[in-house]
């Protein structure tokens, strides 16, 4: 399959030469190893458990469940168990193309920024679940900021690619982000108000002692708002207008190929695992069955709804979701 230049059209007319992306990654890894002599445990936690590899593998399983359930809903067989892994490995083996019009540094670094932020978010959440005393006060706020980095990285990558459709998709992603972020944070405030803490470990332990937040009226309302906003955060139907394969051809990822696309897709897969864990920590005290329940709800919402327009999404989040989340905070403040 070596047809490079076979058509007589110069490749250089449309794109720069391929970048050895793996080499950059390998260099980073080696520098990281040199610093790790004095802190092997931290490196282990970041890279293997509960950091990158654990989150990636769990995310692949979750993504397979998502695709399989979607297939069963549509009355078909669905992909094999290793399908997310095949997709990832295949993308690693493909050519990486950087468009001539792109800012190549931002274009290639954006997926790395996203995946690093998601890995750290997963690390903080799992450390809080495994040992509630281990972290610092305010780690909840750190997780919120880390989860906000993925849409920012996606917007950066899309708008640096120099493709008009990608810039359209980036503007959609930006509007969507601005609309869902406020209800998202307000619904997180309800467990904070009810449990009087911003430490994830204390959120988990006090829910184990005195019942989960979801059992109260305000907690249930906040959980519903949270569920709707994470649908947009994960870029799933009905709020996948930034990616919309059928209308804007992959949207924010349109110019990505090869390794950067693999990292972007892996980041989406990891988020599909990290965000249900976050929901389980906030509203159910980090119980395993609640992670699965949140995941099932996400998949069901995704499979039973059409894609909405961006203006409908903004209206939906700013009117209904924002009002309900403020209502939930007021209820929590007066003790319901």
């Amino acid at each position, binding site marked *: 399959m070596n047809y490079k230049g076979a*058509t007589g059209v110069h490749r250089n007319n449309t794109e720069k030469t391929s970048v050895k992306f793996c080499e950059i990654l390998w260099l980073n890894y080696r520098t990281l190893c040199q610093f790790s002599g004095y802190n092997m445990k931290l490196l282990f936690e970041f890279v293997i458990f509960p950091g990158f590899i654990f989150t990636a593998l769990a995310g692949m399983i979750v993504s397979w469940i998502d695709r399989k359930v979607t297939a069963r809903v549509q009355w078909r067989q669905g992909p094999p168990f290793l399908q997310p892994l095949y997709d990832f490995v*295949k993308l690693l*083996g493909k050519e*990486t193309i950087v468009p001539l019009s792109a800012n190549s540094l931002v274009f290639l670094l954006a997926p790395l920024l996203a995946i690093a932020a998601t890995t750290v978010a997963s690390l903080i959440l799992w450390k809080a679940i495994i040992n509630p005393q281990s972290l610092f006060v305010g780690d909840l706020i750190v997780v919120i900021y880390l989860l906000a980095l993925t849409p920012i990285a996606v917007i950066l990558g899309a708008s640096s690619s120099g493709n008009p459709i990608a810039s359209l998709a980036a503007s959609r992603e930006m509007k969507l982000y601005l609309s869902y972020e406020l209800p998202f944070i307000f619904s997180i405030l309800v467990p904070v108000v009810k449990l009087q803490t911003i430490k994830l470990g204390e959120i988990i332990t006090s829910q184990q002692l005195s019942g989960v937040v979801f059992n109260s009226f305000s907690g249930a309302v906040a959980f519903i708002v949270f569920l709707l906003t994470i649908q947009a955060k994960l870029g799933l139907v009905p709020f996948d207008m930034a990616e919309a*394969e*059928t209308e*804007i051809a992959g949207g924010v990822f349109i110019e990505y190929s090869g390794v950067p696309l693999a990292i972007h897709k892996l980041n989406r897969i990891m988020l599909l695992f990290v965000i249900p864990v976050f929901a389980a920590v906030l509203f159910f005290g980090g119980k395993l069955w609640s992670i699965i329940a949140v995941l099932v709800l996400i998949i069901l919402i995704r499979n039973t709804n059409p894609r909405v327009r961006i203006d409908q999404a903004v209206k939906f989040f700013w009117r209904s979701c924002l009002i309900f989340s403020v209502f939930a905070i007021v209820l929590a403040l007066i003790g319901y």
Partner: protein
Amino acid sequence: MPASLKIKALTKSIWVFHLACSPCNNCDIEILDVLTPRYDVERFGIQLVGSVRHADALLVTGMVGRKVVDRVKRIYEQAPKPCVVIAVGGCACSEGIFRDSYNACGPLDKIIPVNAYIPGCPPKPEAIIMSVVKLIKALKGEK
């Protein structure tokens, strides 16, 4: 990455990009039929993608008219390699009934390299799946 692993992963997860070069749309409808739940090609990891940058296979339909010939070349160059090209339908394989048309620049293999041909006007979904299976076998080096 070893080439055998590359080929294995590629044949397990083929993302197809649908490229219509002045077709009459019959082949396109058959391609859409292949992607419906009835035939369920996601079982084999085959997915339709919206952007040519994500594509592993180009499904090209139609006799290639004067208007699209430059675009076909350009889209083929934009696809990240390794990438295979499949000519779907009689027109893409041999120009079909448009053979003597003033507008025809085809057939497709005069313009870009083609890995598989699916004749038929239009080919049945079963024929398309069979050709993809044969193509996967050829990529793996089997007979």
